[in-house]
């Protein structure tokens, strides 16, 4: 598990983004976001706060307790880029898997593939790992240090280019500078 520091391109910015972990601002932001979500779910019904207030309080407590209280500032430009990529890849991923499974004779060649992650921010990694499963043909099976163990539906297609594109979009969303030069 000794990862050489030279490969962690984004460490500096990551630490800055994590600086306001478990601070008062972090707690307030988490609570406000969760209260907003509750308000949306019940469509503004006032009497629902009877259940909503304890639920929001418990959810905030759980969120902070589990250490997920780092909310790095998201970049608005990055959000646009990420959302566009996410929607496009969702459509491509869905169509790709439908074509492969509905066609006569399954056109698959399953296998595993290792991909080195460039981002080290934990929140960004969680988002990346989850989104990899929505790209055409890839699924993140495990994380081994800085390498993601991916399952591919079709090993004859190299996914590295689309993975890098996704990773850069995630990095931009979290305001991390993606220096993925050494690949």
């Amino acid at each position, binding site marked *: 598990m000794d990862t050489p520091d030279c490969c962690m391109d984004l460490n500096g910015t990551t630490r800055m983004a994590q600086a306001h972990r478990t601070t008062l601002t972090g707690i307030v932001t988490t609570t406000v976001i969760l209260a907003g979500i509750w308000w949306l779910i019940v469509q503004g019904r006032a009497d629902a706060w009877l259940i909503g207030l304890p639920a929001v309080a418990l959810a905030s407590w759980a969120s902070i307790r589990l250490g997920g209280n780092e909310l790095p500032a998201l970049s608005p430009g990055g959000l646009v880029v990420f959302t566009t990529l996410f929607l496009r890849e969702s459509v491509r991923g869905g169509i790709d898997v439908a074509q492969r499974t509905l066609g006569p004779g399954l056109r698959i060649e399953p296998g595993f593939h290792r991909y080195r992650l460039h981002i080290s921010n934990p929140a960004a990694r969680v988002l990346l790992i989850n989104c990899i*499963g929505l790209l055409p043909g890839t699924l993140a099976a495990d994380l081994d240090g800085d390498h993601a163990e991916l399952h591919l539906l079709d090993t004859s297609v190299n996914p590295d280019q689309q993975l890098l594109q996704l990773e850069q979009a995630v990095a931009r969303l979290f305001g991390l500078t993606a220096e993925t030069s050494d690949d």
Partner: protein
Amino acid sequence: MINILSSILILAGVFFYLAGSIGLLRLPDLYSRLHALTKADNLGLGLLIAGVALQSQDLLIMLKLLLVWLSVLAASATSAHLIARQARRQETGS
């Protein structure tokens, strides 16, 4: 016009759900099945929700539907990853 567009989106959504379920039955192993489920259902639910949102014409309901989609996405992507991870760890014995 809105009704037609909404129906097309909902039907397309149902189609992808069907494709995901057929994939679940036809594909040979656990990992490949997870591919079919997560990707086809993500797109299927997205289209279904877009179709329903068009019908509602109420911004709050649209936002709520968007929230539903995002929550399901987060849950299904996370559970797919965890299932794959568990299977992989059992296979490789680590």
